[in-house]
């Protein structure tokens, strides 16, 4: 059995039944990393020694307490990969930037702390666009991660390293963060499941800030069920992040089982399927997504043709807000308290900081920042009206399949145009999930479901039901092929 290919549910069962140990499971992931990392380039840091030591401790606890050990630690002994913009105490955290190279955080992010407390084993830190500024990992100051399905293509971003690591079975699951598309996008291009929770559901404490008003940590997994389990662990009010919601965290796994999708009304927004931005919606992607919608219909969901305002306005809003928040957040890098001098910033970071500073400067504030926040209100109202009629909204995740390495180079707006279907829901703080729904040009295509605030139970339920009826999520790239 290739243990690295298991999902969380299968791995937990194997550990409970003592079919294998956490050390064996962790070694199997480390072996896959050793074998394919040279081609995929998903990791910035590989924590071989500490992960094996933690796996050994997990095995000792399982030996001592048996299945009971999993009651308080549902992820006991499960190896995972974490995007390198989450601070991990005593383990280098770079956000893929030269300026933070060598930075050893003296504290732990809330997300990684919760994962540690529930037993998960940290295998390593994954590559991203530097400071998460991008949708391809090409703006990483270190290297570009490759898409395991085709090494000449990018994995999407910014959580591209995490998505590629899951897709290449180098880990059992991974953690990413999304500001607008950074989890769902790469999940879609790498053929895995990616969940962006409601803004405020998961704490941002210790996540290196990008755009604070939309940053949302979330899981990248092999199944929807695994995403529900991770969400159970990482959600909740955190005194260290004032924007976290005090609302009770339901048991998302139990919620999956209470499924009746026959009562669900799913909106298919015309403006998303007849996209008026460039590049338009790729024909092959539209075909696969429409087929998936047919499947939902056959399962009993009611598909409602509806309209939403064109996502082109959200692209502009997001561009202004993101640059503005970046210019403020990256001001803290003074090269005195931590990190290297500001001259170490990469070109992409410089570009975003400066555009943000421009948009926020005296005389332009009303023209840009204030105007964008007004349009944000319109986007929220637009969704509110839509959710009076439908329960969820369906759309493609990315408008095309994974692009070739280098394609993003000459476009100022590459990331924004790729994230076109995530930007409206992200600036409104809504939850969304991307699941694989087919292939085009031998590359995975993703479909996404978006719901109202805190509607994760329904979003997960629909996506889970889709995976019960389809097998796209069971396909993984064959890395033994010879294009390496």
């Amino acid at each position: 059995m290739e243990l690295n290919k298991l999902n969380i549910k299968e791995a937990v069962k194997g550990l409970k039944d003592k079919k294998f140990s956490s050390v064996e499971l962790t070694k199997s992931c480390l072996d896959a990393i050793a074998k394919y990392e040279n081609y995929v380039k998903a990791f910035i840091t590989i924590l071989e020694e500490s992960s094996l030591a933690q796996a050994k401790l997990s095995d000792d606890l399982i030996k001592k307490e048996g299945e009971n050990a999993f009651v308080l630690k549902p992820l006991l002994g499960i190896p995972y990969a974490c995007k390198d913009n989450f601070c991990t105490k005593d383990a280098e955290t770079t956000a893929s930037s030269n300026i933070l190279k060598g930075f050893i955080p003296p504290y732990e992010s809330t997300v990684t702390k919760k994962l540690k407390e529930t037993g998960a084993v940290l295998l390593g830190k994954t590559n991203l666009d530097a400071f998460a500024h991008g949708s391809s990992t090409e703006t990483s100051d270190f290297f570009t991660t490759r898409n395991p399905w085709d090494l000449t293509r990018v994995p999407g971003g910014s959580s591209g390293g995490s998505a590629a690591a899951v897709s290449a079975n180098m880990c059992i699951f991974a953690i990413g963060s999304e500001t607008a598309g950074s989890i769902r996008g790469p999940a879609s291009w790498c053929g895995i499941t990616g969940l962006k929770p409601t803004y405020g559901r998961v704490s941002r404490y210790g996540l290196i800030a990008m755009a604070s008003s939309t940053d949302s940590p979330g899981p990248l997994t092999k199944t929807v069920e695994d995403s529900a389990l991770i969400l159970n662990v990482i959600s909740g009010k955190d005194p260290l992040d004032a924007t976290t919601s005090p609302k009770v965290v339901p048991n998302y796994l139990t919620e999956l089982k209470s499924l009746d999708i026959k009562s669900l009304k799913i909106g298919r927004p015309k403006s998303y399927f007849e996209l008026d931005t460039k590049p338009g919606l790729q024909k092959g992607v539209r075909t696969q997504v429409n087929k998936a919608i047919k499947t939902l219909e056959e399962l009993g969901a009611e598909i409602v043709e509806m309209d939403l305002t064109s996502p082109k306005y959200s692209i502009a809003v997001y561009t202004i807000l993101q640059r503005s928040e970046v210019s403020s957040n990256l001001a803290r890098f003074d090269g005195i308290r931590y990190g290297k001098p500001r001259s170490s910033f990469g070109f992409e970071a410089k570009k975003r900081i400066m555009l943000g500073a421009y948009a926020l400067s005296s005389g332009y504030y009303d023209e840009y920042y204030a105007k964008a926040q007004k349009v944000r209100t319109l986007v929220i109202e637009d969704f509110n009206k839509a959710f009076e009629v439908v329960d969820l909204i369906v759309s493609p995740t990315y408008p095309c399949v994974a692009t070739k390495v280098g394609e993003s180079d000459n476009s100022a707006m590459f990331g924004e145009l790729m994230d076109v279907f995530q930007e409206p829901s992200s600036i409104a703080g809504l939850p969304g999930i991307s699941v694989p729904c087919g292939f085009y040009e031998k590359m995975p295509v993703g479909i996404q479901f978006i719901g109202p605030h805190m509607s994760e139970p329904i979003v997960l339920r629909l996506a889970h039901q889709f995976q019960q009826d389809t097998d796209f999520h069971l396909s993984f790239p064959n890395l033994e092929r010879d294009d390496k």
Partner: protein
Amino acid sequence: MTKIINIKQVEKVGELSKLKLTEAEKKKLLELFTETLDYIDVLDELSLKKVTETYQITGLVNVFLQEGSATTLSQKEVLSNAKEVVKNLFATAQVLER
């Protein structure tokens, strides 16, 4: 919307952001800024007279940290990534003239 941006403005914003730019970077940034600002013009199509701003979407207000509930880092931890430490303090470049 003001969208005419020139190399002087690029230099000024670079200075305000404490970033050093090469001539080639300035030229490229001018090009990219113009492209981005042109795109943003799309917002002018919308009527915003009666619309108020949304700065954050959680609806939460007056969130305070309970006194004594936060743990703080030790001085040693805080200084652990400093470029230069003098007498247990961050050392910075000289700001004031003697």
